[in-house]
């Protein structure tokens, strides 16, 4: 088939292409559709939002039930994955004898100190690099290069330098946290509308005024995105660090359990991580709601 067969004869200038246009005679009135408005939509949406919570829980419950049944039926061996009931009773037991609290507390402290060092460090570096050419030249190249070095690969160096104590673990968390904070905050500062710079000139804002009234507020959304990523990275690195060398913490508990084939203890620890991750996410969301009220749709 040739092209002209497909396309038909070429259209002449001024020719009316009647059969290409749909029938637009006045008798063919368009059918009207009702668009969703508040009244029309409200009952359905209320129902949806009412259902959302229970449905989510139901989903989780369903998974756990299947898991329990599979365990009871012997499809899953207990040494591979303990049944949910066994996990819960082990969790209760670990809580009762204080093992879980001690481990949690040790891990929480490490994450806290890692964040306490890494977050301000990343933020300050980003602000300095974002504000001055010199700062940018000195800092940004290094960070952009280092961010491609896997942090986990650096752990051996940290152990060489800092031994196996707390400092090595905290440093690793701090290091890992710094990058997402830096990269997102720096990008936010870089993308500030240059017209605000001119506005600052016109209203006579000084250097500190610019930082406080323009740069920092404009950087905040990026910083909070970085913070959320940082929280995830922090837990990830911590588990890793604790599994390599530690005598306390959730990661240590996991390694111990592994040695004694206690899959229920491992699952308890993993559940703890999941809960902590959720909690930190809620924390960042709350911060976002608090600080980004000016954004439409919040």
């Amino acid at each position, binding site marked *: 088939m040739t092209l002209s067969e497909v396309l038909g004869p070429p259209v002449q200038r001024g020719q009316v292409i009647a059969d290409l246009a749909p029938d637009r005679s006045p008798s063919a009135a368009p059918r009207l559709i009702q668009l969703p408005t508040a009244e029309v939509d409200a009952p359905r949406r209320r129902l949806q939002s009412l259902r959302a919570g229970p449905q989510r829980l139901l989903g989780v419950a369903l998974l756990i039930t299947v898991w329990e049944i599979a365990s009871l039926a012997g499809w899953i061996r207990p040494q591979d994955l303990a049944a949910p009931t066994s996990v819960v009773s082990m969790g209760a037991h670990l809580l009762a004898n204080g093992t879980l609290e001690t481990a949690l507390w040790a891990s929480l402290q490490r994450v806290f100190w890692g964040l306490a060092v890494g977050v301000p460090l990343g933020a300050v570096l980003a602000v300095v690099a974002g504000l001055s050419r010199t700062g940018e030249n000195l800092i940004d190249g290094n960070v952009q290069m280092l961010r491609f070095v896997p942090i986990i690969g650096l752990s051996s160096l940290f152990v060489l330098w800092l031994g196996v104590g707390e400092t090595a673990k905290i440093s690793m968390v701090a290091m890992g946290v710094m990058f997402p904070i830096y990269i997102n905050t720096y990008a936010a500062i870089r993308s500030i509308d240059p*017209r*605000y710079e*001119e*506005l*600052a*000139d*016109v*209203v*006579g*804002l000084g250097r500190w*005024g610019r930082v406080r*009234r*323009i740069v920092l*507020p*404009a950087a*905040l959304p990026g910083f909070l995105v970085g913070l959320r990523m940082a929280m995830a990275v922090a837990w990830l690195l911590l588990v890793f660090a604790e599994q390599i060398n530690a005598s306390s913490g959730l990661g240590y508990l996991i390694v111990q359990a592994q040695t004694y084939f206690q899959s229920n203890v491992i699952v308890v620890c993993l559940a703890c991580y999941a809960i902590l991750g959720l909690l930190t996410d809620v924390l960042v969301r709350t911060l976002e709601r608090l600080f980004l*009220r*000016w*954004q*439409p749709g919040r």
Partner: protein
Amino acid sequence: MTVTSVSAAATIATDQAVLVRGLRRSFGSREVLRGIDLEIRREEFVALLGRSGSGKSTILRALAGLDKGATGEVFVPRQRSVVYQDPRLLPWARVLSNVVLGLEGEDATSRGRLALDEVGLRAHEDDWPKTLSGGEAQRVSIARALVREPDLLLLDEPFGALDALTRIRMHKLVVRLHKRHHPAVLFVTHDVDEAILLADRVLVLTDGRLSLDLPVQIDGPRLRSDPAFAELRARLLAELGVDELSEGAGPGRGHLHFANPIDVPDSEQEIVT
């Protein structure tokens, strides 16, 4: 270019707010301003017309002290304010904070409230800028300019993005504010009617030079139906290279056409919002 405060130049007459001599500006090989001479008296309202791309904003930026690349002599008052076509409000600061941005002193807040009062937006002082309508946001930016009590107010197509009805309200507002605060005003626009309605004097920028400088002499309220208004419009349009009749749109050029007397002088008449 040197932007100098008036006080620094003893040679300048005391009733002058702006003195520009031989202002030139090139971008690459293109010379946009080829020797601008401009004087604006204190309290004078001057409109600057010109085609798109003729360099109006470039002049205004030079007077604002924002252009470091122009050459020539520029004398302006220390207190200057700029209103842009976009309101340029900081989205993360509430309306009142935007108005008093960069102001110092403990009375800043109360002065900011007064300025918001004047533009009829006192009730919105705690709003976020993104929740304002276009006209409201522009009024906030006018309040931000006013609160600095400028001796020179620079307006760069401030109502270009507003609808015809809002523009009429804004014109009244600007006239009223000018009567009350009497700054010298340089009002950049491409709307000939707007220029005639508001200004004491209209300048036209053509090919990098001020090619026309006309006083607006219309007694009483400025009505578009006034023959003097029509004559002035015809002259300005001709200077801008637009033949009014052949454009076919007639007076108002496609804008909503209202008899629009500027009749709100010193009275404390409220702009209905």
